[in-house]
């Protein structure tokens, strides 16, 4: 205590030693980037959504961009994106948890090898991964996936050309790439579970499910909430998985996502005001869904405790 006081007195003269000032210097890169690269673009996105942006001239058009947003194409995009989100969230939060618990099991061997093999898909870009998936799930009878389903007596499938299989491709691609990353997150959380708790549970005669419910899950719950939130948000932001299969046009818009719609209207057709309006609606969707999700997973309750 006395030490701190004298140290503080001695060094007050020099800002480099100021404990009061230091945190502000540390966070300044974030503040600058926030103001310039988040807040300003955010405000101009809102502003833009009320404008008709034409080369060299912009004019305010009230809510007409928003009125145009709610059209059948947009509904298709929302529907596709929502289905994609539900699938990826369910698959990418639960299965990695199971994998991580198994990998963390006392009797597991070659953990590093398996962990690395599951993680390796995450190293590929969507474009590279999509190239591979297009090859495996090709249209011809010779494509690998068609040969495999042929073994079970199914007819070859034109994977990219019907709504259900197109969704399957996009979900499969995302899950294949992100599985290992989420396993790593869970494994890191499992490192913090105290062995004593398991021993205590053993002494109390707890079975595997009870141990999971009362010891393992509470410890990894923060990661579970984090991953389900992040996966939801990333799902609503999906663009690349669709782009790599369909570029920007898919038959009957089966691969159209909300961000894909922003891209085609805002960038390709250069209708920036309309694109911005779609973006604002997307933000509203994400905001509501995230709040509901955080509420359901009990993330708010933790604040009180």
């Amino acid at each position: 205590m006395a030490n701190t006081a004298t140290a503080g007195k001695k060094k007050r003269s020099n800002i480099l030693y100021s404990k009061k000032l230091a945190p502000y210097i540390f966070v300044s890169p974030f503040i600058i980037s926030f103001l310039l690269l988040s807040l300003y673009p955010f405000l101009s996105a809102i502003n833009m959504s009320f404008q008709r942006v034409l080369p060299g001239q912009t004019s305010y058009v009230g809510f007409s961009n928003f009125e145009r947003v709610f059209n059948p194409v947009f509904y298709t995009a929302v529907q596709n994106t929502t289905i994609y989100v539900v699938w990826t969230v369910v698959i990418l939060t639960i299965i990695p948890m199971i994998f991580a618990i198994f990998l963390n099991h006392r009797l597991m061997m070659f953990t590093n090898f398996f962990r690395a093999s599951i993680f390796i898909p995450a190293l590929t870009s969507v474009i590279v991964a999509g190239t591979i998936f297009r090859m495996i799930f090709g249209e011809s009878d010779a494509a690998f996936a068609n040969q495999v389903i042929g073994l079970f007596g199914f007819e070859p499938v034109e994977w990219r050309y019907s709504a259900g299989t197109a969704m399957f491709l996009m979900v499969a691609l995302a899950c294949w790439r992100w599985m290992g990353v989420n396993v790593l997150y869970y494994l890191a959380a499992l490192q913090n579970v105290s062995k004593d708790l398991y021993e205590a549970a053993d002494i109390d005669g707890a079975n595997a499910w009870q141990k999971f419910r009362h010891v393992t899950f509470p410890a990894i719950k923060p990661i579970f909430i984090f991953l389900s939130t992040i996966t939801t948000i990333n799902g609503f932001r999906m663009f690349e998985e669709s782009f790599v299969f369909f570029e920007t046009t898919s038959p009957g818009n089966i691969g159209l996502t909300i961000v894909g719609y922003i891209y085609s209207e805002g960038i390709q057709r250069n209708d920036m005001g309309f694109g911005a309006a779609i973006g604002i609606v997307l933000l509203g969707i994400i905001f509501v869904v995230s709040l509901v999700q955080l509420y359901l997973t009990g993330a708010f309750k933790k604040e009180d405790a």
Partner: protein
Amino acid sequence: MKELSRSTKENGIRVLLILLFAFIALVALFPIISLIVASFSPSTDLMRFGLTPELFFSGFTVENFQSLFGGEAGAYWRWYGNSLLISAILIVLSLIFSSMVGYALAVYEFKGKRFIFILVLLILMIPFEILMLPLYTMMVNLRLVDSYFGVMLPLIVAPIAVFFFRQYCLGLPKELMESGRVDGCTEFGIFARIMAPLMLPSFAAMAILQGLSSWNNFLWPLIVLRSNDMFTLPVGLATLLTPYGNNYEVLFSGSVMAIIPIIVLFLFFQRFFIAGLTSGGVKG
């Protein structure tokens, strides 16, 4: 006797676990293996079957790689260099800035700390895609379209990394800061010389994840880059995927080469990453 049956049961579980994960690993690695097989298959096969070559060799050939390395690859190596340069700079800058911010949010008490942390979370929730049209307009106005700086600017401070570093730094032993002060260290010196070494595992983890996200980033470079020569690797490769660009030799061999730097980065940092997590030098 009881001891024996128990170990038999344990061995059974062990074998089951290993078989299960061997299958999972096979599924995970299969697409990459088939990409490598395709890259060594004759391009006539790739042409004939389009994007659906037969999985098994109809003939081993290195001609795809010969055209990749032999000057027939178009702008491929230019894209490769662009991606390497951009990713290297972004890793370094985003690690420095994001760790500083996360560190400050975890170890200092200061006015506005809670507010700034909430901002970080808010930005995590605001998708980049909503900001991209205004950012693109901004780049047009600043004449940064089709430039390295234009690609990098929005990605230098990564809120997800800030969040990660903050969580990690909460577990740092704060007593060391006091002793640093007593020894006459500046606040930045305490960060750089005492705390940062303790944060190495988190740096390794973020180097992998930031490296990945910038090496594989697609949408923003697609928007802000215009000329073939400025494309990053994913954007360039995507141009080969279109129905008009049937350059399968370069697409497949080039895709294999595209994974290599990121695997090197992963293997290099993974050791620190795992060592950091298992040695328990710093517990969160």
